[in-house]
């Protein structure tokens, strides 16, 4: 019995796998002085992955359902794969100058990063618990190691260990929940779960299972109070890895969350809805309040990403609590995710470039950056205010769809969520604006930091350019991402 696979639909995964092997081979074959070719191989490989993605989007015979519905390539999956590949590409690009500048293991670095991308691409198509779990582990596993990639730096080590320990703890809880789901329904397929879960909502074990699964994904998306690892890890890890963690890895977590909730457990909305509501509120509030006090920019972005995770959960939580259309909520969340990915990657690219320019990762060290590096200063303003959701930068649309998803229901709890989110938007502005303030309004220090004359690396510049253009264009014409995300309504449950 040969497995029921559609190799055309699997082309993106195959392309990434080939890239993985090629990276490994290149790393083995190339002499130490030529290691930068590894980066090129990885970049080319990931770029080439776009070809089958585009092909499938245009010509593909979608949806393609494989292995008895365990693996589905539909428009939803394709959109998310594109997101993962694109953001992975940007992270790779960001890594080039960062990795080169210190004594890192380049070949292995790219290998692990591409492996993680592969994991997220697999997750997007997974339609059973096992594939989802394995995909998730492939996303996370390499990241445990990448977080500690600056081996000589104790902070990086610490980041790695904290990430790892909390990661396995959450894996254990997730698995416990999944095992119960299996034990209660006898199936791991989402379709099967969806069919069986309706009768189980009043079963304590089911409640427990659903909530444990939620906790597992809450860890991934850094939802409070399961976010503890994130600030420390973000701060300690190499910055491109942090960027990846805060974008792709978080997005993967959201994809998992959406798949489980929307496809597998739609009838259990009364269980996970309130839980998400709570997580959203706590994440927004705790993340924003904590971010207020941060002086380290990466750490600030870490807390910001906790808060953003809260915002992203709002549509889904709201729809679940109010019992309204979950599909619209999925669209909203995915829209938010896409916009967030662009602007957050931009923000991290700025952090890398700015840290190089100022020789400092603390906010105070960035004082007056705008006066001697106006382009970079502009980018700071652009991305941080976009994160704050200020029009006409793309972030407004993310916030807009979020509010739009919750305000229509008329449910008091949902409205409360909207109000809390609105207040949090305001709190968030304070710290985002503070970065812009430091960069543009504080006087530059007298002593000239070392890197001030150094130009921004071309690869970082490219990332900045791409992200900036997208941020501005999406700000004015958000219809683009809206139609992109709208395709996500077309989710095929598989099985």
């Amino acid at each position, binding site marked *: 019995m040969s*497995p029921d696979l559609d190799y055309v639909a699997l082309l993106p995964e195959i392309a990434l796998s080939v890239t993985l092997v090629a990276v490994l081979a290149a790393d083995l074959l190339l002499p130490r002085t030529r290691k930068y070719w590894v980066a090129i191989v990885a970049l080319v490989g990931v770029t080439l992955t776009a070809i089958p993605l585009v092909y499938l989007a245009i010509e593909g015979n979608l949806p393609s359902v494989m292995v008895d519905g365990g693996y589905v390539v539909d428009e939803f999956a394709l959109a998310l794969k594109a997101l993962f590949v694109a953001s992975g590409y940007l992270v790779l690009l960001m890594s080039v100058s960062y990795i080169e500048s210190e004594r890192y293991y380049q070949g292995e670095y790219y290998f692990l990063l591409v492996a993680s991308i592969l994991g997220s691409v697999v997750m997007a198509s997974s339609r059973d618990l096992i594939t989802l779990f394995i995909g998730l582990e492939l996303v996370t596993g390499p990241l445990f190691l990448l977080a500690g990639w600056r081996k000589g730096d104790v902070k990086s080590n610490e980041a790695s260990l904290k990430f790892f320990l909390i990661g396995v703890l959450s894996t254990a809880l997730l698995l416990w929940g999944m095992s119960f789901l299996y034990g209660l329904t006898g199936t791991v397929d989402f379709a099967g779960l969806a069919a069986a879960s309706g009768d189980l909502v009043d079963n304590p*074990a089911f409640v427990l299972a659903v909530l444990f699964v939620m906790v597992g994904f809450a860890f991934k998306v850094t939802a409070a109070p399961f976010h503890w690892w994130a600030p420390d890890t973000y701060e300690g890890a190499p910055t491109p890895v942090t960027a990846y963690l805060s974008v792709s890895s978080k997005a993967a977590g959201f994809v998992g969350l959406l798949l489980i909730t929307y496809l597998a457990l739609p009838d259990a909305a009364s269980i996970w809805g309130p839980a998400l509501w709570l997580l959203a509120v706590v994440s927004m509030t705790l993340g924003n309040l904590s971010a207020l006090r941060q002086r380290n920019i990466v750490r600030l972005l870490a807390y910001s990403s906790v808060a953003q995770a809260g915002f992203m959960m709002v549509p889904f939580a709201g729809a679940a609590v109010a019992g309204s259309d979950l599909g619209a909520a999925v669209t909203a969340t995915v829209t938010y995710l896409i916009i967030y990915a662009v602007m957050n990657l931009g923000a991290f690219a700025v952090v890398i470039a700015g840290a190089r320019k100022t020789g400092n990762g603390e906010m105070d060290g960035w004082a007056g950056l705008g006066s001697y590096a106006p382009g970079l200063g502009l980018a700071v303003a652009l991305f941080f205010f976009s994160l704050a959701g200020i029009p006409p930068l793309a972030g407004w649309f993310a916030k807009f769809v979020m509010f739009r998803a919750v305000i229509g229901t008329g449910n008091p709890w949902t409205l409360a969520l909207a109000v809390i989110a609105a207040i949090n938007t305001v709190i968030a502005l304070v710290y985002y604006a503070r970065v812009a303030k430091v960069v543009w309004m504080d006087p530059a220090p007298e002593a000239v930091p070392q890197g001030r004359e150094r130009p921004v690396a071309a690869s970082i510049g490219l990332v900045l350019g791409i992200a900036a253009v997208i941020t501005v264009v999406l700000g004015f014409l958000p219809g683009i991402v809206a139609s992109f995300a709208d395709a996500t309504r077309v989710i095929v449950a598989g099985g």
Partner: protein
Amino acid sequence: MTFADWIAEPANWAFLVLAAPVAFAGFRVVTTRNVIHAALYLVITLAGTAGLFLLLSAEFVAWVLVLVYIGAVIVLFLFGIMITRAPMGSDISLDHRRKAPAALVSAGLFAVLAWATVSAFQLTTIAAAGEVVPTDLLGNALLGRFVIPFEVVSFLLLAALIGGITVARRDLTPLEEEERRLA
């Protein structure tokens, strides 16, 4: 089902014989003050688990467990213990001083898990000494229905391997690197 009914079933005798050491060893893994002992207690737990798997007609999984865990993982652990020069003998400072909150948390966790379990699976029974799940069934499942995670997990292992080596190995000092380049 009363306790008498339950105890009357021979398989449950076997269960008790296996479960008691599993539980005890599990307890000792997290409480013993000797590092090496902890690893060895884990071996006992895993071995007992393998036995339970046999009891549950999961022959293949049982042997995988023995092979992978007792054969490989524990050895890995022992190496880890030795390399990190963890204190070999019994050592009080292995644990934090404030154990009570941790105990409370885990007790609470157990209570929750147990209550959920009891209320959900009160009446489900397992056919004693049921038919052993055939290995070819598992093989077909792994390479058919679950072929994709099966392939993907190989990347995970590869990544863990390569990444693990990279991370764990001792970096050359700049001096050594220079020597190496010259050689």
